[in-house]
Structures are given as C-alpha cells and as structure tokens.
C-alpha cells in the first residue's frame, strides 16, 4: 500500500504496511539511518525525530499516523551544507562516546530549543528524560545543548 510522507521537506511515496513503525520506513525505504533502533517501544529515544514540531519516538508511531505531517530527521537539520548549531556544539564539546544515542538526543533538544530557546539546564534535563545514554556522556551533552542554545539566542 502506497503511503505519502513528507520528510525533511520532501514528499515520498513508500510501499509499506500502514502499521509499520515509522522508524523502519525512514531507515530502510528512505535510507535515512540517523534515527536508530534501541528498544522498539518508545523507552530509550534513540529513534527520536520531530513531527509537526514535537519530538517523537519513531519506533512507536505507525507510518500511517505520520502521513501529511512534517517529519524532520537529523539528516534534515543541516542548512546550506553546514551542520546545525546543535551538531556543531556536540562536536565542539566532544559530546559523544559511542554516539549511538546522540542523534536522538539532538532531535529532542532541537524540538525543545525551537519552542523555548531560553530553556534552562533543568528544562533541558527534563526534556531529555526519555533519551537514554549508556556511556555516561550526559554532562558533555548538557554542555553542548547549552552552548547551542546560547548561540541560538545571540
């Protein structure tokens, strides 16, 4: 069954069962590998994308529920060949160990800062409650997000 999706501003037709979690369509049909499988039931945040401005765990959304909505993945946030300020800040702060959780966290942080560029550290921590990091890189990640937020505001 053909499903129409708008991903990173581009329209795509995909042939998938409507119940298929969006994550697999992004990764396998659209070859966007930045959203990653971690748990399949919305508990870890590795697959986070932004749908209509909200951070959403794409493993937990049937593809049929995403039709007609604006889906943004981590591949769609760079502008004019330049990484997004959040991505730049992650590099500047060396905010990764294995990095597997990083893209999901960047998308959660982007949804937060888009809505509230003045988010405090507490609000950032709270917004990332659903994103797990196992390497213990949290403090660098928090610094990176605060660094990006500062740039955002200036």
């Amino acid at each position, binding site marked *: 069954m053909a499903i129409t999706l708008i991903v990173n501003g581009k329209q795509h037709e995909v042939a*998938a*069962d409507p119940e*298929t*979690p969006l994550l*697999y369509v992004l*990764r*396998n049909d659209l*070859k*966007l*590998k*930045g*959203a*990653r*499988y*971690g*748990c*399949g*039931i919305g*508990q*870890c945040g*590795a697959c986070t994308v932004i749908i209509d401005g909200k951070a959403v765990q794409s493993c937990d959304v049937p593809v049929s529920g995403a039709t007609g909505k604006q889906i943004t*993945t*981590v*591949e769609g946030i*760079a502008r004019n060949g330049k*990484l997004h300020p959040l*991505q730049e800040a*992650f*590099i500047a702060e*060396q*905010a*990764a*160990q*294995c*990095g*597997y*959780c*990083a*893209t999901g966290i*960047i998308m959660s942080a982007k949804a937060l800062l888009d809505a509230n560029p003045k988010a405090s550290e507490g609000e*950032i*921590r*709270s917004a*990332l*409650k659903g*994103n*797990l*990091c*196992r*390497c*213990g*890189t*949290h*403090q*660098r*990640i*928090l610094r990176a997000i605060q660094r990006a937020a500062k740039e955002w505001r200036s």
Partner: protein
Amino acid sequence: MSAAENTPRKLPGSLNTNRRLDRWLRINRDGTVSVFPGKVEIGQGILTALSQIVAEELDVGLQRVRLAPTDTSYSPDEGMTSGSQSITDGGAALRYAAAEARDLLMQKAASQLGVSLEQLTVTDGTIKARGGGSVTYWDIATEDLLKREATGDVPPKPAGQHSVIGAAIPRRDIPAKVSGAPSYVHDLDLPGMLHGRIARPPSYGAKLAALDEADVRAMPGVVAVVRDGSFVGVVAQREDQAIRALNRIKRIARWEERGGLPESTDPRFLLKETTEDEVISEKSDQPAAARKAKTLEAEYTRPYIAHATIGPSCAVAICDDGRYTIWTHSQGVYPLRHDLSKVLKVEPERITIIHSDGAGCYGHNGADDAALDAALLARAVPGQPVRVQWMREDEFTWEPYGPTMVVKLKASLDADGNIVDWVEDIWSNSHSTRPGAAKGVNLIAAWHLAKPHEPSPPRNPPLPGGGSHRNAIPIYEFPNQRVTNHLVKRMPLRVSALRALGATANVFAIESFMDELAAAAGADPIEFRLRHLKDPRARAVLEAVAAKAGWKKGEKGDGARGRGVGFARYKNGAAYVAAIVEVEIGNEIGVKRAWVAIDAGLVINPDGLINQTEGGLIQTVSWVLKEAVQFDRERVLTQTWLDYPILTFDEVPPVEVTVINRPELPPLGAGEGTQGPTAAAVANAVHNAIGARLRDLPFTRDKVISALA
C-alpha cells in the same frame, strides 16, 4: 643453535605477536599513511588516540593518517579490544612500528641525498637536508621498505618532543556520528539486503517442542524460516516483516523449559555452590599479628549487572559459494572467526570478518552471537546479504551479564589504628566466556542447534590482571594478609566480561571496608588510606582529589548530604584513580557531584581520557544506585528498560576530572579505572551522610530504608 637463539626477542605490545612492520603501516604514494589497527572503536576514542601516536612518531600531519577497518583479511591479530589494553597493546605496537618506519625513511633519504642522518630534519613527511635538498616519504617509500620484521630497537620520541601526543585532538568519528550519516554496522545497507530476526527460546536450555513453520512461511515477505534444533530464525524482505514473523513465531512456538535459575536474586546463593579455591595472596608477620586490638568483619555483594547497550547487537552476513563475509561490532574479529569456523564447518580462511562500529558495549555483549545468527540465516539464502538486529528483549535476556559476587572481609587494627591483619574471601563465576577458546564454542546459537556445541570451559583471566579476582589483592601495605578466590564453576545465568570485571565488586568491598576500619580507628578516611600506602603515585591521586574537592579532615555529613572517597589502582598495574562523590538522600539516593583524580602515565589524548573517566563514573553511579538483573527460577525477567532502569539526564551529577600527566612514564590502561573507586565512594558517602552502611548493591530505596531501620 641454542634454544635462546630460536626464541624471538620480545617486542613492545602487540608487535610481539604481529612482528612485521607492513602489518601495521603503509606509506602511500598519494601522501597518506595507512594504519592497520587490530583494536577497534567501542566508543572510547581509541582510533583517534592511535592516529595521534602514528602522526607523532612518523612526523606526519594527522590528516594524512588513514585507519583501515579491522578485517581478518589483513589486520594484525590483537585478540580482544578489552581490559583497557588498547593503548598499552596496540598503541605500543604502533608507537614502535612508526618510530622504526621513520628511521628507515630517514636512512633512505640520507643515502639518496648523500648526507648523514644528523643533517636531516622532517616535517609532515618532507625530509630536508641542512645543506639543501629534500625528499618526501611519498617519493621514497617503496613496496619493500616495511616488508620486514620489526626490531623494536628504534626508541620512540622522548616526551619533551611530543606535540601531537598529549594534545586534546577532537575525535575523528564524532562529526559523522552526530550528523546522522551511516556510522554503525546497524546502518549497513547492501543491495538486495534481507532482514533477519531470531526467535530465541524463552529461557536458558528450553527446547523447541513444536512450531508450524508453514504458517510462518506464508506470512507476507517471509523468504526463509531457518530451524535447526532449537535455533529458529526468520528471513524476510523487509525489516518490519521479519519482526511480524518473529512475533508470530513467539506466539505459536511451543517450548519445553527446564528451570534451574537460583532461588533468589540474593548473591549469597554463591556461598552454597561448589568452588575451586585458590589462595592468591598470603603474607605473615607474627609480631604484627600479635598487636591485634580490634577486629571487624563485613560482607559485600553485587548482583548480576547487564551491559545494556543502547543499540541491540547487529550483524550483516553474506554466504556465497561456501565463503562467508560478516560485518560485526565484535570486540575480537579473530577469536570470533575461530568459533564461527567450528560452527559453520568451514576453514577460517573462508570467513572474512570486517569490524564496523556498534553502540557502546562495555564488555562482552551480544555482538559475537549476532554474527553467528546472521551467518546461519545467510546460509539459507546464498548470495543475499542478511542483516540481523536483536530486539531489545533479546539483548536483555541473552547477553552475558557481569557476574554476581560476594566478598567477605575480616581485618584487625592495632591500638594505634593500623591494619595488622587482613583476610578476604571472594565468590564469583569466571568473568570471561568470550569466543576464541581452544575447546567449545561461546556463541548462543551454537548451543541451540540440533547437534549442539558445548560452551567452552570458563576461563578466569589469570593474575596479575585477573578476572573475578581482579583488584582482589589490596594495594595497601598490610603485614598479614590472606586473599582467597572461590571460583564458582556452575553458571546458572550466562555471564562474561563487564567493564572492570571483578574489580568493581572487589574494590567496592575493600574500599568500603577501609572506611569502616578508619571509623573504628577514629581516623579520617583519606588519612587512613595514606597511612597504609607507600606508592607515591597512589598517594598523589588521593591527595589531588582531596584538594580538588576541598575535603576537610574528618568531615561529617549532615543527615541528608555527605561525601565519601574510593581509591584503587586498576588491575593493581594500570591507572591510579581516586574518586570523591557527594550524595543527597531523600526518598532515594542521589549523587550530586563527583571529583576524580587519575594518573594513567603518559596521556595520549587528555580529552579522551577525561571523557572515559567521566563516563565511567556516571555509568558506575547507575550500576550502584539502580541496576540488578531480575529473574525467577525459570526465566530472566529483565526484558525492557522499565525492568532495568538506568541513570537518566535528570539524575546525572557533574564530574570534575583532574588528570595527573606523567609524560616520562609509559601510558597505562584507563578506561575501566573508575568503576571500583566510584562504587565505594557512593557507599562511603551514604554512610557519611546518614550513618547507615550499605553493603549490598544496588542501593535502592528499600536498601536505604532497611539500613536505617
């Protein structure tokens, strides 16, 4: 010829077992240097550090260094990437290989330019003679230049000449990883690739009694159902189809389960098991023993702990004409190939294993198992690549956990508050059941086949590094001491290497007990430790962390907040680490702040070292406050993150790391140094805060309440 002449001389690190220079390095005509590491990236930033070593010793810009993925068709065999040994094994090999390669290039340049070596200088691969004339590495390097055995005779640069070693060079892999570009084996997407899933038994030892395979084959997209004994897998066109088929199999398959798990999750079941006992340290001084004035005893435990990677294990395999190509995030491609060869019944040479990054593993997780899973499914669809990714519950229920442990301690103080006798007994399974053993196969699927392979006998890595007994021998100076390792042979739950192996529980116990003894002696915990330590480097990390944290002699908590210290030298031979943490106890224990001092000898990349140290501390706080694998008599019950909570963003403390660099000394393994000291520091901080001594990990709310009762 005498035997001595036949024995090859010992070369540094992994150069000793991979002795040819061209196994490690190639100087290319295009102005690049290819490096062939046998150690792999597991999130610790090792590939950046190894590049720095090569750039430094060869005198070339970092941007010229190309790292080849670890691959059994050409890489040196460095065994496992484990035990905080990548710098000391692989780094040492590359350091000496690059120094020798530079020397060969300089000699060749000297002869081409007709000058002596003393008249040459080299900058970024261009060699200049003082009197004029220059050549580049790229011009003079010939195919045969590095086709020779290393001598190990060319010394690496002295510390005073370092400019790349010791610099906080940004990680090579982070830009791609944060951009969302394909970076992991999970992201590999080959033309015509199919997707596989494995329907594991519901519990260890369960046998498949019935499965209607035709029912599964009829499902949309299903290409193959692979059944061999109690091993069941499915291959489908699409990943979602493979998952639907897996869920169907789980619903309709009938299994016969056998039980056999411990009666409770209390680690003390170990005390009733059959053990192999070994006294690993014994010291006797009768006059000192006679000064005993006060004796203390205590028992400490830790539960089974999961590696709990964020990205469940994954592999991609192709089977074509009896040859296999497998992409994996295994920590050891050669040991994996050894086991795969036995199960697939093909010569190792017919199996090519290519490493590709995975999510952080923190030890032996499902990576190797997934490689066999992919190979078995690929065999059913020759010529077509098959990608297998484990589901979250596969990882939680089938990974080999860090073993549960019990440590009993008894020590005596003299009237002056000095420890005069120390008796320690530890109970644990082996901490290594990795692939690559001579006998048996250590891969799950192999145990489930109709003609199953036996797991290999567990190997407890020997001292001085040790496995269950890693860091069991106190580094303090005690006149009387007896340490006994009780190795528990039966393994009711699958176990293997988890970051730091036995050091976590052993240091947790020793360092908690040191605080208990300090209190009994009426001494400050840091002063008490220093009293029993001679090694100046050990003293220096304790003094450094105390200074940084502003530790006040004899400081006491206030009934809610408190601070505690923990110290160890990892493996009694690697990095020195001292940690202080501050806790706050409300409904639960929160770790609010932490300070660490680390001495890992020569630091290759200070930011990499700090990142590992911060991460190690935070991961350990998670283990200590929250983590324990749950099971009943039949099944592992830990299946999702709800069953196995870990520390989250709203709970992590800031960590301040002080690095004591010793550029003149050899680098020491550092990635696992914080585990033991952190665990003890939390326990000691809790005691400092509320006067309750917690001895059983994890320190959940119930434990605090019962300790206060």
